[in-house]
């Protein structure tokens, strides 16, 4: 089971959408993944041990070496397919 941390401004709204889209996509691909949501400010304290970090919103904090993908395309639709493919590739390694 892969673990993905999804972060947005207050961990309420946009991370919910992004996490759901990622879970649905990975399920279709046969990749088992679990998502947790958090606030961007809490990423440095929580991200350790995750397989992937996805954010909506500007993030420049410490991600403890965890692979990182920007999730904005999953909200706007522009480049969403590429982002989802990138996420699947990172989790398949």
């Amino acid at each position, binding site marked *: 089971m892969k673990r993905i941390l999804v972060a*947005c*401004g*207050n*961990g*309420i*709204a*946009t*991370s*919910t*959408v992004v996490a*759901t*889209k990622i879970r649905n996509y990975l399920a279709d691909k046969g990749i088992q993944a679990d998502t947790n*949501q958090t606030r*961007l400010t809490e990423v440095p304290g929580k991200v350790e041990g995750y397989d992937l970090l996805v954010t*909506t*919103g*500007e993030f420049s904090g410490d991600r403890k070496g965890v692979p990182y993908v*920007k999730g*904005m395309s999953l*909200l*706007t*639709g*522009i480049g969403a397919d590429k982002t989802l493919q990138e996420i699947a590739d990172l989790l398949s390694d």
Partner: protein
Amino acid sequence: MVEIQYDKNLFFIQQKFADSTAALTFLSQQLITQGYAKPGYTEAILAREQVYPTGLPSAEPRVAIPHADSKLINKTTIAVATLQQPVAFHDMEEVKTTLDISMIIMLAIKEPHGQIEMLQSVVGIIQNTKLMHQIVGATSQDELYQLIMTNL
């Protein structure tokens, strides 16, 4: 699951605002006055917009999705305003950049991480450029409400 209550009285067409602060103040005050949000939601919305702006860099016409602390919400809903002239909001992803925003969908979310269907639908509307042009061009409150509700 509790059904979400949408309220036509929270849908506003062709609004004129001097800036994003005026727009955010207006919509959050409507949520408070109509009982969906608690006093303090305006301040929370404005503070959040400063740190984590909510303009989305989608195809035009563009949308902002302001929202703040669930603790300040009584009932989940959305408040919508289309703008006569776009207003500048900062970009959620590139906060130093500003975007011309033509519609505001203010989210009032009672359950953190909840309301997945509503949020997915809102994002679906934002990604549907043809629908967005219809929404921004709506000339009556009824038309705006129907366009949104049939796609939620």
